[in-house]
């Protein structure tokens, strides 16, 4: 009899419990401060965009990592290299003479969306750069608008150098925070970025 009672208790537990799906608590709404400080370090020692990083396209000829090689500040900086060889494009189905890296708003291309960060009243992006390029490779770095900076093998700074890209329009419809594009087959190179910051 005792055994049957115990089995009955277990069965009641079971019927009352399993099968519900609304069991987890979404913590994201609790984290909203509803205010803006006016400064956004999108990369310091870690990526702080809330989104992901995507490379165009194949990883075979390019590499990206959070490197401990002489960061400008903190423990790590961002390192992005290209061998200078053509890179396979999954979109075009062939190899192309350029490659790039983008700091996405979404986690990846599948979860891409636009973002309105005008509340931050950001007027510029600044960052620190160093690197080495082999001719004829060039690298261009741009923010959400058209404003960009471009380097070739003779202009790329070997030591950490600050760069500022200014904006006049509110950043109300952005899909990416920063885009880096290598072009010019045959050279290749490596750049390091650190303290990438949006500010007023």
């Amino acid at each position, binding site marked *: 009899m005792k055994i049957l009672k115990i089995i009955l208790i277990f069965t009641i*537990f079971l019927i009352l419990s399993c099968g519900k799906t609304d069991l*987890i608590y*979404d913590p994201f709404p609790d984290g909203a401060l509803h205010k803006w400080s006016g400064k956004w370090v999108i990369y310091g020692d870690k*990526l*702080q965009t809330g989104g992901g990083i995507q490379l165009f396209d194949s990883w075979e000829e390019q590499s990206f990592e959070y490197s401990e090689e002489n960061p400008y500040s903190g423990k790590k900086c961002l390192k992005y290299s290209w061998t200078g060889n053509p890179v396979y494009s999954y979109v075009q189905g062939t190899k192309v003479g350029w490659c790039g890296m983008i700091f996405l708003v979404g*986690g990846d291309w599948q979860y891409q969306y*636009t973002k309105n960060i005008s509340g931050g009243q950001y007027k510029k992006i600044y960052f620190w750069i160093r690197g080495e390029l082999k001719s004829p490779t060039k690298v261009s770095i741009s923010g959400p608008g058209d404003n960009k900076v471009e380097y070739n093998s003779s202009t790329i700074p070997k030591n950490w150098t600050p760069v500022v890209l200014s904006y006049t329009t509110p950043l109300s419809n952005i899909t990416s925070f920063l885009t880096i594009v290598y072009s010019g087959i045959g050279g290749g190179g490596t750049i390091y970025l650190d303290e990438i910051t949006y500010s007023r």
Partner: protein
Amino acid sequence: MKKIFFISLLSILILTLKSFCGTLPPYSFSIEARLKLEGIGNKLGEEWYETAEGDVSATNIKINNKWKWGDGEMFFLKPALSLFPGFEMGTELEMIYNYADRRYLDVTLEKKMKEETNWIKLINGYVEYEKGYIKTGFYYGIGHGDWRYEGDLFGLYPEAWEIEKYLRVGGEPTPYWFEFKYDGSPHKLDLILGPEISWGAKPAILGKYSYAERNRLWTLIYKEQAVEWGKTEDPESFDETWPEYKKKWWEWTHYEHFREIEFSLRSKFLGIANLQTGLLFAPNRVDWEYTYVEEVAEGTGYLGSKYLIKNDKIKTTDGLAFKTILDTQYAPFFDYFKVQYTRAGVMAGNTSEILLGFEKKPSKISSLYVEGIFRDPIIGPNPYIYEGETPKELRGPAVVTPRGEEDPFTVTMYNRKAYIANIFFLFDPTPGWFYRWQPNMLGEWNLNPEEKGPSFVIRYSISYYPTGTDRATYYDETAQKWLWEPAWSAGIWPTKKPVHSLGFMGVVTFVPDYRVILSLLWEDSFANRAMVYTEENVESKEWPQWSPRLVTNPFDIKITLETPLESYMKFNGYIRYGHNIWGPEDWHREWGMTYDNFYNIALNFIIAHGIETESTISAEYIKGSETDHKYRTLASFDEIRLSWTLKSGVLFNFQ
């Protein structure tokens, strides 16, 4: 040429009359061989197709997929040699002639070998010498237990048993280590030099000294472990093309080291109880900075919020931990009582935990065990706090994120705040222990093979996790390496209310010797990788959007039959049905990948030829199906597997 080689090996095998099983006698040489021939056919579900890259994807159009058949031939050779008393060495080689593609558990060592056109691989090996009080050896791709029953209260030496999984997923034999043992009772010494003592671990050395006296065991353990995710010296000097030993030496000399010392005592308490007490000192990452968050009155925190963001540094005392376990069979009202308390600083486990367990035997043939666990980290996980508004489109910079690679410690699934109660009811009127290895754990692996029944165990668990976690590492099967979850993750989410789990395992034996095992599981189950916990994934999206399941309610039932048919022939087989179950690999649950319905039937006939040679004929049907058109991550498929395995061996004595 390859065919001739294969046929030659097969001939040797068939001509072999007797195999060797057991410890190798001195002055002897043995070879055990196993040949497996298999034919596998599978067919994708009608809405699925294979992409050019070899992946699978779904479409709205119904496709008349055809059965595809492939064959696989594998040969395993296991030589062992004992040159003189106490000395033994052995290894196991796997050779493949072909590999048959499969849909279920498709990550295999053989697939990797075929892709790399590597037709022969060493999958384990050992060299061992034992004389008197001393035993020493090198073990490669061979599992090992832990030291939990030898005074290791804090788990400094982890067990590593899932050898087949490490090989299948990682592609290389692991763990591997050198060991030196001295057993001059009451003094015992165990030294381990481990390039990889568990899957993915970096090099470590461990030393354990124990002294046993009447009713007491004193243990001292030292561990020094290289850790990948810390400060690395000269990271650019590492070369992926180096041989394994050179890589391991580089890891040992360039990675940050964690050092831990444990001291424990096991003794009798008042003559009626067992008491184990341990201290751990792990003074690692001292002066590393970390962030934590305190909730304060609204308006008094950062930017006028309720969050006060604080920074602190790791202190030497953060590496201290204390643990004690008391258990007795002489408790009032109960037949068994256990209490366990742990308090561990942030660098020694970051937890405060109490466990209470009671066992009551309502009759001589049944027992009820109730266990309660309350756990709370000393410093909890960091929440995801950000400027701006809640909608993702209006979300600004993250001010605080869950801790990860760059932080000195984290809160994981295993030390997050939890309230857990487990109830086990065991009915076992037959002689002998119901379990095989550990009490109160369900699983056919833990069922005593001698248990005939009728007997059963029911487990009911209720758990509540009011807070989340930080980020964690995970194994990326595609990249074949361990990675950290990204900083945009808010950790694994808390539970709103208690979650439940029910398990059952029963055994019954019919005349003459037909053993039937029934296993059943029904529970609330969660994806266990923080990065899938996003708002998008809460509401399942309609096809074709990839959408993982964060919560599922798997129902899983399996009936196993084992029986000797004749003196020379055995049969075993099982039928399994699963509804809303996770896929079979670890990353399936991590990524929230489930089968809506899963069917599996397997039959094995084992036929003995002579004394030790045997062959196994197996047939298996597997079907996974997606029916709700929402979670299109694991393809629908049908699969049939047929195989024949011939196992034999020979022993030469050259004394």
